[in-house]
């Protein structure tokens, strides 16, 4: 299936889900009534989406979940679909965000991405990127973009 048709279908799905969810969301506001660590995660994902859009990727979907886990952002980079895993770290963490994606997480990401592509009969190129966001006290958060994190693992 072509990229265009895959995109169209996901946009339809997003509209469907947002219609169902939006009333409740609007009442609660984007960051209210959820625990702090989830708020940080959500903030990071929003930042990542902004960043991705700023470098010219087209956002296809957010928070697509399946039984193997959730894909934070699905975007398209030219003719290639990019599955983005966003990791956000607040101040005080010793371990950098990019180190928190281990082999098990990668395996799950790959399966989830494969389910998504196969569900849409998409046969083109795709890859998995990591966006690591480190929050700072005084200035804008640091955004690091690591492309194709499964590349070295053959």
């Amino acid at each position, binding site marked *: 299936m072509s990229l265009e048709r895959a995109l169209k279908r996901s946009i339809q799905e997003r509209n469907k889900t947002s219609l169902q969810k939006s009333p409740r969301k609007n009442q609660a506001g984007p960051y209210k009534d959820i625990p702090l660590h989830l708020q940080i995660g959500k903030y990071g994902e929003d930042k990542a989406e902004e960043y991705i859009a700023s470098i010219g990727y087209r956002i296809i979907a957010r928070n697509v979940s399946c039984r193997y886990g959730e894909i934070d952002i699905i975007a398209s980079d030219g003719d*290639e679909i990019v599955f983005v895993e966003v990791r956000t770290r607040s101040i005080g963490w010793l371990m950098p965000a990019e180190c928190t994606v281990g082999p098990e997480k990668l395996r799950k990401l*790959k399966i989830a*991405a*494969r389910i998504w*592509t196969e569900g849409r009969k*998409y*046969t*083109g*190129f*795709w*890859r*998995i990127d990591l966006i690591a966001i480190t929050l700072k006290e005084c200035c804008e958060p640091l955004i690091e973009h690591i492309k*194709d994190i*499964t*590349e070295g693992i*053959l």
Partner: protein
Amino acid sequence: MNSVSGITLRGVKAVAVEVEVEITGGLFNISVVGLPDAAVREARERVRAALRSVGIMLRGRVAINLAPADVPKEGALLDLAIAVGIACVQGGIKVKRPSLFIGELALDGRLRKVRGAVPAAFLAREMGWDLYLPEENAEEVSLVENVSAWRVKSLGDLFAHLKGDIELARVEHCEAEYDPPQADPDFSDIKGQAVAKRALEIAAAGHHNLLLVGSPGSGKTLLARALKGILPPLSDEELMEVLLLRSTVGVKASAIRERPFRSVHHTASAVAICGGGSTLRPGEISLASRGVLFLDEFPEFTRDVLEALRQPLEDGQITVSRASGTVVYPAKVLMIAACNPCPCGFAGDPVEHCSCSPSALDRYRRRLSGPILDRIDLHISIPRLLPEELVSLEGKCGESSSVVAERVRTAREIQVNRWSEYGINSNSEIPERLLRRKVLLKPEVKNFLLQALNRVRLSGRGLSRVLKVSRTIADLSASDDIKLEHVAEALSYREGEALSWMKI
């Protein structure tokens, strides 16, 4: 056939390996199929990094098929072919003529030298293909005639060349030159030992095997090394064979017609000498082909090694059979063996007394089996020099190596002229049927030989070896037929005193 091919080595022959690449969508992944060994499978990491260095980013599922599928592929020399194959699919590179690509890739896209460039050149010539090879391999390939080969420094240069942006340098054919090897030691530096020097001359002229027996310090090793200075130059055909073997093992090949001289320590294993190993490599006996294999302390070699030498010494080639395949390597060596007459070294010495026990002597002598001694044409005993001879430091002793080398060269030319129609280069290779037909003996020589044979027991092989040596001696004196004195001299080397200690 696809226009992108690499090679893999089977013995000393190159087998063309076609590289097919398919890239489909999906997550990035490279797989190599077609019986790759570890080095070929690791090529995907090198290829990926090298392609990245020239701006080709790989993505999707990359499937690389190396055909024919049932031939095991070995070595890093397929790197370049794989990289070009991928670039044809994804990088917009076009290979117009069928070409062979060999070379190991560095991560930054440079090309490293490989073993097997000369076999690849032969294959390219045979098929009429272009050959792209690393700069460092250009020298050896330049000796092969009629090859359309290009020197490649890096992957970037190659792609620019294939796109037509730049022109790579061709490998120009150059003739191998012969500058006479530096004789070290020179014959004139060796005192006395006239018999041994004569035997070395005969051995060099006719490519005959030689056994030197003598007490410690009598100069066996010195004499063997002096042989290097009198060997005749390699002919074109021989040079190609030597080049091919050297390239197969990755020994640096140079453009000189010097014969190989391989000196092997007695701890060598049978595989090291005869060839083999998991990836099938030629052994020392093949590397020394058309040259000298020097085995010092001959009886100290393990029995396996010595007995393994029997067949190659007779046939001039060695068939190595392993699970991974069977290959035939050339093994036309001039073997020089040196040994002491007994463990203490002084048996038969006029001054020193031998202190070996009879059982020790027996054991030592049993190490040299009859069959192996039967294959050595010239048995020479090296006597210890008298004190007066040793002290006479002034002056040169006898002819210099260059004089002897000239004689040897002439004798070898006579042999080549005589035998070239049969594909033989030296007297030692004369097959039995030609020996009976071509080596004519006069009636009186025949009589003498008959008498001699009644006295000394010679095997059938022993006799033909004596005849071959007589032919060489006759050639050295530029005589057309074998005369009585030639046969007598040849016989004396075989059944002389050198091996008297063998008989208890």
